[in-house]
């Protein structure tokens, strides 16, 4: 599974524990595959790495052994592609009068910045937030300011002391990309972001995030530290005083030009490209596919993982940091499931459709492998009847299996009911296809899709996600269940009907979120509320007395019915300020007090 920006990363898992080996299954068909892929010699299978290339070769060999072939017109199952593997500051500079500030100590380019050199007068635009007119809530940091051809200085985040309702609205428009867009649209040539003295992480620069969007933002943008900020504000009131005025959230507190301040800004972002490989194969139909409605069925799982965890979505800490992230559950388990399904499908005497078998790379850094494939046209999406994705299916607990993206076709309910009657899983159905895994790309390409997962756990995105913790008995059951579905899909007269699911509104920007509660949400639960699959040792949730299995139904007076509500409610919390958390445990409502900490 790729980083789950809205949730897990936000909630900030920081400690690894809990190692219960379950379901030994000595004769498990998936066990050898998981143990092989999650071995040290593949080094955590980072996209573009030697370990990933070795894993791809191994998987191509396994597929060939099962009787799968390279796609029509190809002589190899390996499908290499170029991708942006990361970015770093390559020497951003800012000149202010006779002083020159340099990266990385004083400032850092924002990852989406254009490489440009801009200079001019500087205007302070408060928090740099513009709430669209459509929101019927007047807030425009640029009101009355002329920033055309100038550089803009804005504060990071949103007003600290605003009441909750105001923060709820402003937070939505406080992402740095959004602030950059607002500045550019008003004619600014550059953007400088300051983390104010009254905010968390005061005076620090914004770490460069990995950003796969190749298109620039049309503006030169950098974050600066407290020293640079002090130099910018040296001629007038202190930044702290200015911020305090703004922090009430009063929309009438205006920004102002920084009199006599002229700067030159030259952000430099180095984007590193690398080559990764999808492994693509197929089992040909057993009869002529001409006349068959959408003649392909696709199975897929990503096999790449985080390598040594240096790209930012690792949650490893302490001694674990820098060790190989073996990714047994994420996603050697899904890869093994795809191979097991392939084997079962290959044994069936009849297939009216071709079965595409796709093992994706570069999923962890933005679902790039599957996107590249879908854009490439080798097998056009409109010829694919259905797509089954497997991401983290090796940690089943209590017979619970989540099936996601069911909203992509009204035909899924019937197919799933029929397959699950004999399989007997406690299924959780989630309509939403906008999951942080490759299923999202297929759903957006109008392919009826499903994702299978047994959910997140405390070893998620850590070196401790190892093969000995996989529940092989149930992993094999998941593969058998999916094989039943795959065979039916391959032989259906009419392909499932596709339905587009609208993206859930109100998703929040990552950089607006900053509290740490130490909760691990349970993705396989369809409980009304947010069920916890764990709490981080020593974190605020554990200190408050919450534990695994609790279902949070209310935080600080905000009712919680799902993970989106939860994330949204967290956004509104104030670090260090205790709030009441209402939850269900053993059928009874209880209330505890939780004090959120700052996320780093």
């Amino acid at each position, binding site marked *: 599974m790729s980083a789950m920006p809205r949730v897990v990363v936000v909630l900030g898992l920081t400690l690894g524990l809990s190692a219960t080996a379950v379901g030994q299954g000595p004769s498990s068909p998936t066990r050898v595959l998981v143990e092989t892929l999650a071995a040290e010699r593949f080094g955590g299978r980072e996209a573009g790495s030697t370990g990933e290339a070795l894993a791809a070769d191994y998987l191509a060999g396994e597929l060939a052994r099962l009787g799968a072939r390279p796609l029509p017109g190809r002589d190899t199952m390996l499908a290499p592609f170029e991708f942006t593997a990361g970015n770093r500051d390559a020497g951003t500079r800012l000149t202010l009068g006779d002083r020159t500030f340099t990266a990385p100590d004083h400032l850092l380019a924002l990852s989406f910045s254009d490489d440009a050199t801009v200079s001019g007068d500087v205007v302070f635009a408060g928090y740099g937030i513009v709430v669209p007119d459509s929101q019927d809530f007047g807030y425009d940091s640029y009101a009355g300011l002329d920033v055309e051809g100038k550089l803009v200085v804005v504060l990071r985040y949103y007003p600290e002391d605003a009441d909750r309702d105001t923060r709820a609205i402003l937070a939505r428009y406080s992402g740095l990309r959004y602030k950059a867009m607002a500045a550019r649209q008003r004619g600014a040539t550059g953007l400088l972001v300051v983390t104010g003295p009254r905010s968390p992480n005061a005076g620090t620069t914004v770490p460069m995030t990995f950003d796969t969007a190749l298109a620039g933002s049309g503006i030169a943008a950098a974050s600066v530290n407290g020293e640079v900020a002090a130099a910018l504000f040296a001629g007038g009131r202190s930044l702290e005083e200015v911020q305090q005025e703004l922090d009430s959230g009063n929309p009438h507190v205006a920004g102002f030009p920084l009199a006599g301040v002229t700067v030159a800004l030259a952000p430099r972002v180095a984007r590193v490209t690398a080559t990764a490989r999808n492994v693509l194969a197929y089992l040909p139909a057993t009869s002529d596919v001409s006349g068959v409605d959408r003649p392909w069925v696709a199975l897929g799982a990503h096999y790449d993982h985080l390598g040594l965890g240096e790209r930012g979505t690792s949650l490893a800490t302490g001694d674990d940091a820098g060790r190989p992230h073996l990714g047994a559950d994420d996603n050697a388990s899904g890869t093994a499931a795809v191979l097991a399904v392939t084997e079962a499908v290959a044994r069936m005497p009849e297939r009216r459709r071709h079965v595409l078998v796709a093992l994706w790379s570069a999923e962890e850094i933005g679902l790039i492998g599957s996107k590249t494939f879908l854009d490439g046209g080798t097998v056009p999406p409109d010829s694919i009847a259905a797509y089954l994705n497997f991401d983290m299916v090796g940690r089943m607990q*209590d*017979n*619970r299996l989540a099936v996601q993206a069911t909203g992509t076709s009204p035909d899924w*309910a*019937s197919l*799933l*009911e*029929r*397959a*699950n*009657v*004999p399989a*007997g*899983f*406690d*299924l*959780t*159905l989630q309509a939403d296809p906008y999951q942080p895994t490759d299923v999202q790309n297929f759903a957006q390409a109008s392919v009826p899709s499903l994702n299978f997962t047994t959910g997140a756990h405390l070893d998620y995105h850590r070196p401790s996600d190892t093969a000995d913790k996989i529940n092989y008995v149930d992993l094999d059951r998941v593969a058998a269940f999916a094989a039943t579905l795959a065979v039916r899909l391959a032989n259906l007269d009419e392909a499932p009907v596709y339905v587009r699911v609208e993206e859930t509104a109100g998703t929040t920007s990552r950089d607006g979120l900053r509290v740490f509660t130490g909760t691990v949400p349970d993705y396989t*639960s*369809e*409980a*009304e*509320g947010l*069920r916890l699959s764990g709490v981080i040792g020593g974190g605020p949730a554990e200190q408050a007395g919450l534990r695994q299995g609790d*279902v949070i*139904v209310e935080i600080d007076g905000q*009712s*919680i*019915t799902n993970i989106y509500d939860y994330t949204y409610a967290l956004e509104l919390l104030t670090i260090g300020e205790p709030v009441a958390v209402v939850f*269900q*445990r*053993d*059928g009874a*409502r209880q209330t505890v007090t939780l004090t959120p900490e700052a996320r780093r």
Partner: protein
Amino acid sequence: MQQIHNVLAVAAVLIATAAPVAAQGAGPGEGAFLDRVRRLTIEGRRAGEGYWSPDGRQLVFQSEREPGNPFYQIYLMDLTTGDVARVSPGLGKTTCSFIQPGTGNILFGSTHHDPRSEALQAEELAFRESGQERRYSWDYDPEMELWVWRSADGTLQRLTHARGYDAEASYSPDGRWIVFTSTRQAYDRALTEKERAQLELDPSHFGEIYIMPADGSAEPHRLTDVPGYDGGPFFSPDGTRIIWRRFDEAGLIADIWTMDLDGGDPRQLTDFGAMSWAPYIHPSGEYVIFASNKLGFENFELFLVDIDGTREPVRVTYSDGFDGLPVPSPDGARLAWTTNRGGGREGQIYLAEWNHAHALAALEAAPARRAAAGSEDRP
């Protein structure tokens, strides 16, 4: 086979405003009785009332799962393959199915012979389309008659012809008898003014239990004669008794009763002073599983009571919302029931492994039965 509609509907309205809760798998406290809890039906808006074939390989149930008809139809599920096939005609309302031992024929109540069926379907769909909310009320349609789907050739045979609601039917273990609920007594005689008002307000008040030969070859014989809705009858596993639920005259309180096949020796098993209904006797013959809202008007839970009702009932489920219509498998090792624990207002059929040994132990440990306040006055 039970009228779940009335009860579910009231519950549903209240659930919608109740606090959100954990609603997944086995709730706390259930684990001792229920293992591997899972949702069996997935397709469609709602499903319920699952009854097993005698060999435990099939389940017949009602579900709303096809476009064009907003009412329940009857479906047969093969538990080995997962295949599901509709056995009712698809038209009109149906309810309360049951598989005949020996033949595999399927008995159910249906209104498809009513020429107004299509119009009524369209009317209900239009009502839904309008976005209005209604407190669902099952109408005890006097057109409802008992029909049999013949497994041999898929043809339908009509068993009852009297005006009045004929439904909630089940077979005896040897397949030779049918026991069912009917309101026919309200249609075959002159009603007093008060009775006419009652029929208008709540026709279920006239529901009584009847027995007849499975082939419909003789007139039904009436077994109950107490004002208030008697319904939901089933035979005991040895075929010697009938279990059903009896509402009080006001239609608010219901309790579980058993009687002989001729209506003799009626015995009251429960006395919660609440709505206790949907009883089914475990194949061991030792105890009854039923649903009651004792713990909250909108919160139906499953309970057990010993077959003679000598002890206090024992609670089985612990999930807010609706748990009802429990039916143990013929081998007594599994339980199918209807619940909305998966979310939303509508029920679906769930399945679990049933811990019979624990049930016996829990009943053994239960205290002697207490009478509910004021219950001495009731029959």
